[in-house]
């Protein structure tokens, strides 16, 4: 769908044409579901989140003024719905979902080793699986920003719109998220296999 077609559909919805909204849903449902799925890691919850995001979009369609693509606005709604959901789930567990970024400033970046440059397909798959585990272990705000950047391929300024952050904050939060993910991967016991260390054992 071109931006022009999208604009026309949005106008029609704003003027009361409900059926036009269905076309917008169809065009964006995979993006929204994919993001929700990676955020909450559970299909049933992800479907609920996705549906809620679209319903919120419909109810607040007059707030969409077309400064960005409709999908960017949807990403914002989806991210917020997922973050709220995750926050309410973990409130009892007392874990901090919004990372206090100050905590991270002092820590030095752990220099990673060769595991991150997989040579074989097996190693590549292992890395991919470890990353999927690592993503789930990240604080939700870091997970959201990495998903938007790496999976939805949004630019820094689009991410700034989605997360309502300054671009400088986007830049540094992505860096911190990657740094944190590295630490998680290094500590991941299931990911400690490397061909090099195996060879050493044989000696």
């Amino acid at each position, binding site marked *: 769908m071109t931006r022009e077609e999208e604009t026309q559909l949005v106008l029609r919805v704003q003027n009361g044409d409900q059926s036009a909204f269905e076309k917008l849903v169809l065009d964006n449902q995979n993006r929204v579901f994919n993001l929700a799925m990676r955020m909450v890691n559970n299909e049933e919850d992800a479907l609920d989140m996705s549906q809620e995001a679209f319903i919120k979009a*419909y109810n607040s369609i*007059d707030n969409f003024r077309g400064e960005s693509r409709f999908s960017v606005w949807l990403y914002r709604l989806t991210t917020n719905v997922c973050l709220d959901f995750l926050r309410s789930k973990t409130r009892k567990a007392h874990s901090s979902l919004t990372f206090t970024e100050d905590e991270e400033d002092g820590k030095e970046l752990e220099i990673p080793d060769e595991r991150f440059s997989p040579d074989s397909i097996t190693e590549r798959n292992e890395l*991919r699986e470890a990353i999927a585990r690592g993503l789930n272990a990240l604080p939700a705000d870091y997970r959201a920003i990495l998903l938007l950047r790496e999976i939805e391929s949004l630019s820094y300024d689009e991410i700034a719109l989605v997360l309502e952050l300054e671009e400088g904050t986007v830049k540094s939060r992505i860096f911190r998220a990657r740094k944190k993910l590295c630490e998680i991967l290094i500590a991941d016991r299931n990911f400690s296999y490397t061909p090099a260390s195996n060879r050493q054992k044989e000696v």
Partner: protein
Amino acid sequence: MDACGKYYEMISQLIDGELSAQQESELRTHMGNCPDCAKVYEAFSGISQGMNLEIRTAPAGFASGVMSKINEAQKSNRRKKQSPWKIVFPVAACLALVFVVSQSTGMFGGGKSANDTATLENRMFSSTYDAGSATDAAPSYKSEFAGDAETAYGDSAAIEISDKNTATELVELLVSGQPLQNRDIPTAAADYTVICYLGEDNSGDGSGERNISIWWQGDELLCRLDDRPQALYDCTASADEILAIINSYLD
């Protein structure tokens, strides 16, 4: 290594293609001489590539499921309270609500009786609209306000609510209900107008303000955003609740 601190962040930006040509060249030169940074670059790109995870797609029937939910919500009783969705204002915006107060026809004048309710009813809606219960007494308010969208400024005193929390709460309540479809825009003058001044330009026409026209109708409020004539909303809060907020702010 502290010296490499700024390079680590640049490496992250390089992966995202967000460095200028000059910055990129400076970074690559540095990485040629710094094994630690080279390792960080490999790790960050490894992560980036490793994140080409399977793209999940929505199941068949998802879209029609969404549309049925929307239809259900439209048909269900509009008087039922729904949770307000948030209107997104810029974080830095200072939201001031200006209530235009004039003399009045005021439904919100102190000590009004049901008689005034009747008068109000006559002023309202075109006959296509179901006016609903007319027996509720008009809520009372410290000052009076009235006026229609055109003469909202009139010669009235304005009450500015600059407390962002109160202002935000009010706006969210006023424009929080279901959008009303397929109904006539009320032809009668609005009973009152709320003018929202936003700290930054956040209205489509560049004026930095949004007008909300409000019609009181029995126990419910209908609100219209003036910058979108078709946008008529059912306010989920009752007139009493709105006034309670205003009155407590004025205390």
